């Protein structure tokens, strides 16, 4: 400062609003970070790989932004630079969802199969994140040093004090932004993902306007930039992948957890409906066919009817109580209702974490309430939490819980969890689980079955699902699973033929013995790295005899 400069204004009177800008910039940074994965999810899923890539990109952008802000802060009027930076950030962010599809399509080929997806999960999501989110992160990072410089020039605050207070305000803003984005903005029916970004853009534009008004010299260009944000809430759209050849979208929803849609396939006569969740690959989470019962070859859900048949074939009678963890849109219930032995009194309890999925199930998948109380669905409930909270025992527990397309939630893969499942089964009761994989020696299939075998202290029967990338694992409390070639194995009639075809030969099933130590525990849980390895080795593994 020199004698010809105007006298410094009172920092307490004219500087506090800068902390508000810092807080809002922090809130916007966290909002972008959390919502960013949801932008990429329809193309690459929302696995740990994608989350890590997004975080890396945001952090790199912030680092570059801090450097840029430091250089810009040497200007005569930092506020002018701040206004320009924030206005640019506002425009980037508000219109970002509309760029998602053209950018992601550059890195995702049409009809990508899951067993070829591993390299694209890493590189495709990284490239898309860099192109979409690096620039906004740089801009948001640059705001901090400019705010610090403005505050320290205004009055009695040293650079250190100004820096500390700006960081504190920004971090508090980040906390608020994280909660607001996850719990309020994204799941709100009037907002959703695209409008959340538009809202962030509007907040940044408001900050830009405040900086612009606070500057002595005002550039019309900055005002113009900020105005570009205004149409965004009405015009910006999140570009999604096409449903796939021959598929028609019936409905879609954004929930707290994911993007969900219902598609219908009428190419083969009888319509089939699929529930897709963040789907970027050839996979789905729930299936519907008009008539309840077995779905046919390629659908692992049919295997969930096996325990009831074996149970009945062994002479058991009475109510058959089934707990489904990962109920989805109700496919398991529909299969069981149509495929169980005559006279079976089915009582079904379903647990599903995402209420939006259950709502779509009610509307498009025939999921109905049962007035006799024999069909209960607990939505908005975590499977492990529900397992502890529910009362009663069950003849069968079905585990079909997947997150982010290909990931078993880590806390649903441990020896302790399987031990808790065991405690909820009657003596002789059955656990049957869907495990996605590419061979009996697939890292995930092997680890899950060995862990379950350890927890139950029993052999686990692992069945290969024909024409699918799935395996079902079966284990019993206090009893052995049926062995191939024994009288307990066979199920009479068409159902037996449909369910057991090819399972009695080499490559159809294996028995996994309890190991000395479980591969997966609550304390040591490598399930995510095992899943990454499973995808990387998929192409090679599917060529090996199962």
């Amino acid at each position, binding site marked *: 400062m020199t004698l010809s400069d105007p006298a410094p204004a009172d920092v307490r009177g004219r500087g506090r609003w800068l902390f508000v800008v810092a807080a809002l910039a922090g809130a916007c940074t966290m909002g972008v970070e959390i919502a960013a994965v949801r932008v990429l999810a329809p193309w690459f899923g929302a696995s740990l790989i994608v989350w890590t890539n997004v975080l890396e990109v945001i952090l790199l952008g912030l680092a570059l932004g801090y450097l840029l802000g430091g250089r810009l802060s040497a200007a005569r009027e930092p506020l002018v630079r701040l206004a320009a930076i924030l206005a640019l950030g506002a425009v980037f962010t508000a219109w970002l969802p509309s760029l998602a599809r053209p950018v992601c399509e550059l890195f995702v080929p*049409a009809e990508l199969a899951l067993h070829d997806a591993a390299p694209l999960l890493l590189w495709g999501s990284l490239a*898309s994140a860099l192109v979409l989110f690096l620039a906004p992160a740089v801009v948001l990072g640059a705001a901090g040093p400019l705010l610090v410089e403005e505050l320290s020039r205004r009055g009695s605050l040293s650079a250190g004090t100004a820096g500390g207070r700006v960081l504190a305000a920004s971090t508090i803003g980040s906390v608020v932004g994280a909660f607001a984005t996850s719990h309020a903005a994204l799941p709100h029916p009037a907002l959703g993902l695209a409008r959340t970004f538009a809202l962030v853009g509007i907040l940044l534009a408001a900050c830009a306007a405040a900086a612009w008004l606070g500057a002595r010299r005002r550039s019309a260009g900055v005002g113009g930039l900020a105005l570009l944000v205004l149409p965004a809430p009405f015009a910006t759209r999140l570009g999604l992948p096409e449903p796939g050849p021959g598929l028609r979208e019936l409905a879609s929803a954004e929930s707290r957890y994911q993007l969900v849609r219902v598609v219908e396939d009428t190419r083969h006569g009888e319509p089939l409906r699929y529930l897709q969740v963040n789907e970027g690959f050839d996979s789905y989470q729930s299936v519907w066919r008009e008539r309840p019962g077995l779905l046919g070859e390629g659908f692992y859900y049919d295997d969930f009817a096996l325990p009831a048949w074996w149970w009945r074939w062994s002479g058991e009678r009475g109510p058959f109580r089934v707990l489904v963890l990962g109920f989805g849109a109700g496919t398991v219930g529909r299969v069981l209702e149509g495929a169980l032995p005559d006279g079976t009194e089915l009582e079904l309890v379903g647990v599903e974490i995402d209420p939006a999925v259950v709502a779509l199930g009610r509307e498009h998948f025939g999921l109905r309430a049962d007035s006799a109380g024999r069909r209960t669905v607990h939505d908005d409930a975590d499977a492990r939490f529900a397992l502890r909270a529910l009362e009663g025992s069950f003849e069968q527990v079905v585990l079909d819980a997947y997150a982010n397309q290909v990931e078993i939630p880590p806390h649903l893969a441990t020896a302790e969890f399987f031990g808790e499942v065991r405690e909820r089964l009657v003596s002789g009761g059955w656990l049957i689980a869907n495990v996605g994989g590419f061979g009996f020696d697939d890292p995930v299939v092997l680890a899950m079955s060995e862990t379950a075998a350890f927890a139950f202290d029993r052999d686990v029967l692992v069945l290969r699902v024909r024409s699918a990338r799935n395996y079902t694992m079966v284990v019993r409390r206090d009893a052995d699973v049926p062995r191939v070639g024994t009288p307990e194995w066979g199920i009479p009639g068409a159902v037996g033929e449909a369910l057991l*075809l090819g399972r009695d030969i080499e*490559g159809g099933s294996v028995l996994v013995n309890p190991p000395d130590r479980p591969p997966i525990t609550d304390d040591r849980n490598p399930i995510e790295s095992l899943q990454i390895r499973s995808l990387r080795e998929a192409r090679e593994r599917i060529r090996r005899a199962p």
Partner: protein
Amino acid sequence: MLLEVVLSAYLLAVEGGAEQRALEALEANDLGGALAAAREVSDPFTRATLECRAYHVARDFPRLLRSAETGLEHRPQDLVLLWRAASAELWLQDGVRASLFVERLAEALSASSLVEPERSAWETNVSSFTEQADALRASARSTERSVTRARVVSLAIVAGGLLVLVIGGRRTPE
């Protein structure tokens, strides 16, 4: 279907015993029984053909391919085994290997003494398989291009960003 009937009739006429039992087991979807009976068949080509049918029903395509390749060592131009092998490679989504079997199938078909309508039926199969194999190869090339593009873009941007950080961090603003 026609081919299956023709093959079954041929086998019944020429050999009995184990083959008969294997065929009956296959008709009854008793795959374990079919494979056990097939192992007793002395002729390696016949054994391989029976195994391929069983593994096809079981949808165990790697084992099917092993059996098909064994059978083709003895009869390299057998249409049924070539068809099964091509079909298996298509299911495994390997366009390159599927194309090789489809080409062999087309050559074998040209050299065969088949007459209409069987010849047209086979030619339709070959055309369909060719299309599917070509689509798989195109898809594989597209995936590879996407991965390369993603890798180049990622490394370029990250390297550029790190360079800016290093250079920018050294220089002080005037």
